[in-house]
């Protein structure tokens, strides 16, 4: 694989075997940290649950550290998942924030229709349920037969 993040060796801050943390060389703000799972995954949906859990815990702890080390007033955690990803490797950005930096990480809230919200809710709930049924289907079904003929057939190499 020709992935920049997999080869990353400069300015490494954190390494626990599963997760790697380093300073971004073209940062959003001063002290911008990138956390990645060491194994190559392109989007978050491919990453196993354990790694995702650890990733969030480590991000949370490091963002607490940034308050004291860089003396900032706030931190942002941002995941670009599937969009605006410059390097096709799932990554988590920790961005230290100050009131004076000109980073535009806010959005203008719109007013939504009640009906439209209901439609979205319905679709989302369906998507959540569908996923479950697919998971059940994927499990391999073992047919256990008690007859000795089947067993002997299985034994034959």
């Amino acid at each position: 694989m020709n992935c920049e993040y997999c080869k990353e060796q400069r300015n490494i801050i954190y390494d626990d075997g599963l997760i790697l943390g380093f300073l971004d060389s073209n940062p959003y703000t001063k002290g911008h940290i990138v956390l990645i799972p060491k194994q190559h995954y392109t989007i978050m949906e491919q990453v196993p649950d354990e790694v995702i859990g650890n990733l969030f815990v480590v991000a949370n702890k490091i963002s607490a550290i940034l308050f004291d080390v860089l003396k900032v007033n706030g931190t942002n955690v941002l995941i670009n998942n599937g969009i605006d990803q410059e390097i096709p490797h799932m990554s988590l950005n920790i961005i230290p924030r100050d009131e004076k930096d000109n980073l535009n990480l806010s959005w203008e809230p719109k007013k939504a229709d009640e009906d439209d919200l209901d439609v979205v809710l319905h679709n989302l709930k369906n998507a959540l349920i569908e996923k479950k049924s697919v998971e059940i289907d994927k499990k391999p079904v073992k047919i256990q037969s008690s007859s000795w003929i089947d067993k002997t057939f299985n034994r034959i190499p």
Partner: protein
Amino acid sequence: MAKYTREELVEFQQKIKSLKQEDLSKLSPEELEKLQFLQCPFCQIIDGMIPSKIVYDDKECVAILDINPAIRGHILLLPKHHYLVGPQVPDKLMAHLGVVVKKLSKALMKALKVQGTKIVIANGQSAGQKANHFMIHLIPVESGTNFLNLERHDVNDKDLEEISQNLRIYISKIFGLNNVTEPPREIITDINNKKSKDNEEVDQINSIKEEVPLKILREKGYLYFLDSEGDISRVKMKKKGETKYPHEKVKILNIKREPNLLYYIDSDLNVKTRPMNRRGRPKGVKNKHKHKMSSLTNKVKSNNNISNKESDDNIREKSNLKRTSDGDLRSNNKNKNKSVDLDDIANLFT
């Protein structure tokens, strides 16, 4: 189930209005919790006092649709307990939230047919946090929309190295094995004070950094245990057809064991103790079924104890030999034990 009834809350609101600011500090913890509940709209949403569109609900967290979304399909993931900012959230809950985020973003991609999602956490007002309840935003983004596409800047390599060195010291201090039991906040303030006082002490901290390994979490495929010298060590788990792996020391503690306590290691590699389970029987009484065995083992112990005290060092050497050599010493030991057993059994019958 609702935490508080509506009448109860109205009553409480009137009571607080009548109080002065000085009296607020005298409120009991239960009343403070009630006050917090009154002031946080998200706590009321979770409780069901304010109606909302709930996407996902489990024991620890709730996901709702934002009423004022940035983009259609904007989801807020909220922990059920009230936390102000991220650093207050305990690790276990944070890991759970991460897994739920993954599920929800998959659902968003499927339901709204968008190319990707953006996940945003804001800690602190200057980071754009508006509510007083910790939350994770999940925003579906279609390709072509220029949403939260941030500008990058160029920096000197020197600056980067400075920051990374600084951070590495703090991180190794906090995640490092030597300080796992201590609360992280206090360590940070300690270092800060030292740093401002002397430059020499910074060098000392640098030297500590080299000693402390960055590995913290348990690695997969290893068995962690408390060894005979009171230190934490680990062995790589054996698979079929592989030879045995040697023990590696992970953390030196020199814990002296006390009798009647079980020593064990928890998931964060802290050593903990608890009293041994005696299955509800008092100390002196022996179990019916194990009557013979227990008496035997006691006798063997009493025989060996005298010699043990005299030649502690020899036995340590032997135990070291046990690990290295393949089987000769072990088989000898087993035979010895067996011979003692047989003699004692003979004594019992006479």
